[in-house]
């Protein structure tokens, strides 16, 4: 392992909570509905994070706790029952309903598991109920997906069929691309988790080889292991290097000749390297500061340093699972400063002090930093954009070169006009 410097920090944070992952999960599984059991704040949060506005009825909502629900818990259970009935009556197309716990529902100890169990009996054969927590006192941003996936595992049937299971939400086009490449490699039985339909859950068992596509799935991985799945240890498929290693790790698990992998990947790699050039020109030698948000920070830092030649000032991450990140950390340059957790004020002091060329941060900090003359890239974009895989390496680099290029355009001398 390289001599990476690990630090921990506690204090006020500037990170989304796990509820926000609903925003991409509901797009991934259009037959699912996410019902947050929480406060008006939760409702407002999802609405604000979901972007501007919704264009049709959204596949998420909030059962807002009111004064009377806090008075007695029995009432809250009945109330939730009523709300679910209303919802199902209005949205008969829902196949899976996630009851999502929030900070207030956890503090008042609302037992969503029992509610889900009862509802499952009542709506048997029509709607499936699962529950998990996306609360901000337990989870940050992407950890919500971990909770949602973990909640689905008990519903997955067992099978000893040999298969490759890609775990973590991917953009559909990226997923299709991966499947095609794996088929070329000779791995034909490939499934995804989460699937595109919540009802089409893959079957798992001791011949399931799990390849993670996202680094924030600690609990899901643990439960998959308990179900006998084999976890393939690999870096994450971001950038050429990460993706190549990722494919190689999968190939090894399926006893596929390494030469064949190189043979199939090399044209893609060459093409991607070519595409990466113009971005590298801009990014090379620029100093990068990553504030914690998505847990993708370490992989991004590895890509931006190793392939785009950026200098890493600090790599923040809201939570660090050293085991899952082992392969990534090995690829980081020596003396990389990793900071787990956050004290946002102290971290911003360090940002100002080090005066980096680019800061990766959440949306709450981006404009204020821009106003101070520091270029930023919003971390939320990484979870919405197709950034995985060799073919997307240049697009991924583009997300970071764009703010810098824009800066160049805006600060160059004004054109002479007549």
């Amino acid at each position, binding site marked *: 392992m390289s001599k990476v410097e690990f630090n921990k920090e506690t204090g006020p944070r500037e990170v989304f909570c796990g509820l926000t992952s609903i925003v991409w999960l509901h797009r991934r599984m259009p037959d699912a509905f996410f019902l947050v059991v929480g406060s008006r*704040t939760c409702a407002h949060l999802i609405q604000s994070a979901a972007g501007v506005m919704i264009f049709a009825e959204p596949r998420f909502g909030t059962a807002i706790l*009111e004064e009377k629900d806090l008075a007695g818990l029995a009432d809250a259970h009945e109330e939730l029952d009523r709300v679910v009935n209303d919802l199902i009556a209005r949205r008969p197309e829902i196949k899976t309903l996630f009851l999502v716990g929030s900070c207030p529902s956890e503090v008042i100890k609302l037992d969503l598991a029992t509610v889900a169990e009862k509802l499952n009996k009542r709506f048997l054969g029509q709607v499936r109920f699962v529950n998990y927590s996306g609360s901000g006192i337990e989870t940050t941003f992407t950890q919500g997906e971990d909770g949602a996936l973990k909640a689905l595992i008990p519903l997955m049937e067992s099978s000893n069929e040999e298969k490759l299971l890609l775990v973590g939400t991917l953009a559909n086009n990226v997923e299709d691309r991966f499947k095609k490449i794996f088929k070329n490699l000779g791995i034909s039985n490939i499934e995804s988790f989460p699937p595109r339909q919540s009802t089409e859950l893959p079957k798992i068992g001791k011949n399931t080889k799990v390849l993670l596509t996202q680094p924030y799935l600690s609990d899901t991985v643990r439960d998959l292991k308990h179900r006998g799945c084999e976890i393939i240890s690999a870096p994450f498929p971001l950038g050429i290097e990460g993706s190549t290693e990722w494919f190689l790790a999968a190939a090894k698990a399926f006893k596929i000749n390494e030469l064949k992998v190189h043979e199939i990947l090399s044209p893609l790699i060459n093409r991607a390297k070519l595409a990466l050039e113009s971005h590298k020109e801009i990014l090379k030698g620029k100093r990068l500061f990553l504030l914690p948000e998505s847990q993708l920070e370490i992989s991004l830092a590895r890509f931006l340093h190793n392939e785009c030649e950026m200098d890493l000032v600090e790599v923040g991450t809201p939570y660090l699972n050293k085991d899952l990140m082992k392969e990534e950390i090995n690829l980081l340059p020596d003396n990389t400063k990793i900071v787990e957790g956050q004290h946002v004020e102290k971290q911003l002091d360090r940002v100002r002090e080090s005066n980096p060329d680019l800061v990766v941060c959440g949306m709450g900090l981006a404009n204020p930093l821009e106003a101070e003359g520091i270029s930023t890239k919003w971390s939320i974009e990484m979870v919405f954009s197709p950034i995985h895989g060799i073919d997307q390496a240049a697009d991924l680099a583009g997300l970071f070169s764009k703010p810098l290029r824009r800066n160049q355009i805006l600060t160059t001398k004004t054109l002479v006009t007549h």
Partner: protein
Amino acid sequence: MELTLWTYEGPPHVGAMRIASSMKDIHYVLHAPQGDTYADLLFTMIERRGQRPPVTYTTFQARDLGGDTAELVKKNIKEAVERFKPKTLLVGESCTAELIQDQPGALAKGMGFDMPIVNLELPAYSKKENWGASETFYQLTRTLLKEKVSSSEKISPLRWKELGRRPKVNILGPSLLGFRCRDDVIEIQRILSEQGIDTNVVAPLGASPDDIERLIDAEINICLYPEIAEASCEWLKRNFGMEYTNTIPIGIKNTIEFINEVHKKLDLPLTNKEELENKSKLPWYSKSVDSNYLTGKRVFIFGDGTHAIAAAKIAKEELGFEVVGLGTYSREMARQVRATAKDLNVEALITNNYLEVEDAMKKAAPELVLGTQMERHSAKRLGIPCSVISTPMHVQDVPARYSPQMGWEGANVIFDDWVHPLMMGLEEHLIDMFKHDFEFVDGHQSHLGHTATNTNNILNSDEKKEKNSKEGIIWTESGRAELTKVPFFVRGKVKTNTEKYAILRGIPEISDETLYDAKAYFN
């Protein structure tokens, strides 16, 4: 429990953040878990602010709950005070913190700071954003001025005469995330100044705690946004005798009435009404022949109380529209909205369920919707033009250009904003004159793509509905053929009217003759 798929207002502590962020030298310590920091992006992304809101979140986690969250609160308060050195400290909690009952306000007061501390108790499970903003502004005003209550004499609106200077007023209520507040303030200050009236303090937008202490240097208060300022205005009236205005200067008539109200209160001579009317283009634009087509346009209005009421008045009295729906999500303003609706012979819709609003909109079948960004979406789905007149804020509602809603320029902006989504006057006339032209055959409506509905679609989508409809009305071949001849832009209306007529008369099949009968009937 209330099922919400979308909400018009945030929680009350977001209202408090609006006040804190609007002001200078104030810091707000919010006892809240990490997820609540999302509220920052309402200011940094929607308002495009270059500063973070002056808010420190305590960011408590589950593991803190067993231990001493009160210590965590105190640590954060101490750090925030040292770092930001505010002149006044607001301390409060979000919904989750309310449940663990740490009483951060009381803790802060026991820490021995010498700055004023406002303890905000905003019940998150029963109140909402506007109430939270109003309560915060009220508590802040009260805290900063309560010591002066006993020593102060009642303030006479005529004090300026004794002091031998121009009269001074405060403008209260504008805040961040309020609809076009920044520009409204400029417009109203300009109008007052033209009338020989000075602005003492604008608050909360841009004010510091020192400014709040100076509020009593003015003669009267302008209550510009009752949702936020009325409670404070009322307190200032009770304790210092300061009068405040009731008229919101949106639209020409309201602006004139507002000026008159201010003048009466301050005992200033009134300006000639015609001279005032000439300050805006709206009255003339509205009278000009080109605007004839606006006559009786059916308009549906929904928004915050202040803007919805003002919009109804402008629509009816200044643009000659027919108001076919009026409502608000502000329960605090329900009484006033109901009164306005009654005057207009419509039933007020008081709800925070956007689906109910959409249903009401569909039923009223308006030609124009004035609403929030949500109604813009609903209207788009129904193929009805829409203009946004109210919060909740969207980045589109924070334009770079000067674009007030109040005063003379505000009236100009409103004329443009409301009338442009409609088909424009001459255009509508010409289309009517040339309706048999090839250009208006289905599929050749390039200038108005989105509202143009294909006849087949109208009939087909309706055929589906027919199976379930109680009325079970059928369009015959001749009826359909005649309907295709109706210009696309009134086709929907003609269709609805004809069906309405058929139901009224118990006619099961609509032929071309039925269509003409209906036309005659509704003329």
